[in-house]
């Protein structure tokens, strides 16, 4: 069970934000092409940073609290999931605030 520690936190982040899609009608997953385009740059940039930082010894991730699957032999798979789940949660939060408050964010039609 200990090995599911990190994955468990990721599951919490995902479901802790995904309910906004239904309750606040954020329509983020529904606009999945736009979502994939938005995710593609950060996931690549931050995965490269992460791999470099682990290789340089800046930080380490406990093998006893992760699944043990390491991409490129170095990056725990949880880290890749992190760089997908966290940007999705941020975009959901952004659209949730717009859903409730109606404040403009710069992509409205009448610009």
């Amino acid at each position, binding site marked *: 069970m200990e090995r599911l*520690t*990190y994955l468990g*936190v990721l599951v*919490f*982040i995902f479901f*802790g934000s995904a309910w906004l899609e*239904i*309750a*606040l*009608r*954020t*329509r983020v997953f*529904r*606009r999945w*092409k*736009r*979502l994939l*385009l*938005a*995710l593609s*740059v*950060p996931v690549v*940039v*931050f995965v490269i*940073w992460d791999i470099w*930082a682990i290789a*340089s*010894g*800046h*930080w*380490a*991730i*406990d093998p006893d*609290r*992760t699944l043990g699957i390491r991409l490129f032999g170095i990056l725990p798979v949880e880290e890749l999931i992190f*760089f997908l789940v*966290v*940007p999705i*949660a*941020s*975009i959901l*939060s*952004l*659209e*949730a*605030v*717009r*859903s*409730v*408050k*109606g*404040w*403009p*964010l*710069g*992509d*409205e*039609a*009448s*610009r």
Partner: protein
Amino acid sequence: MTYTQIGILFVVAVVVSDLLVLRTRLVTRKGFWVAYAIVLFFQCVTNGVLTSLHVFTYADSAIVGDQPASDGPPPFFGQGRIFFQPFEDLLMGFSLCLLAMALWIYWGRRGVQRTPMSGPPIWRWSGRVPSTAPSADGPGPGGARDGEPTA
């Protein structure tokens, strides 16, 4: 370069991208800061759990604070730590979220699935109608969702 230096560099680079490259200017929007405040709260909770359990450990030479001995959690606050996290994690979190949000707005503005816009919340049936729809929505249950334009 240390984690501290790279973190600061990333924040600067992403803010510059938001203002001058993508020109999304999210950092000038109230909605962004409220959304970031929500993200920051949950970052402190979730990353606080992970750092206090030593899922992540950091080299002394890479961060401002010192990595404590492995038998106890790092300081809750102080020695470069905020809710157990090295403050550098806040730099990474901010740059990750701002970059993703700015790109989301960027692609929407370029016309990639700009609509259907978000909202209204499910408890607000007669609330804000998406600005592009002069209302094809019926008041009936389930009618609103599919009545909106998709392009």
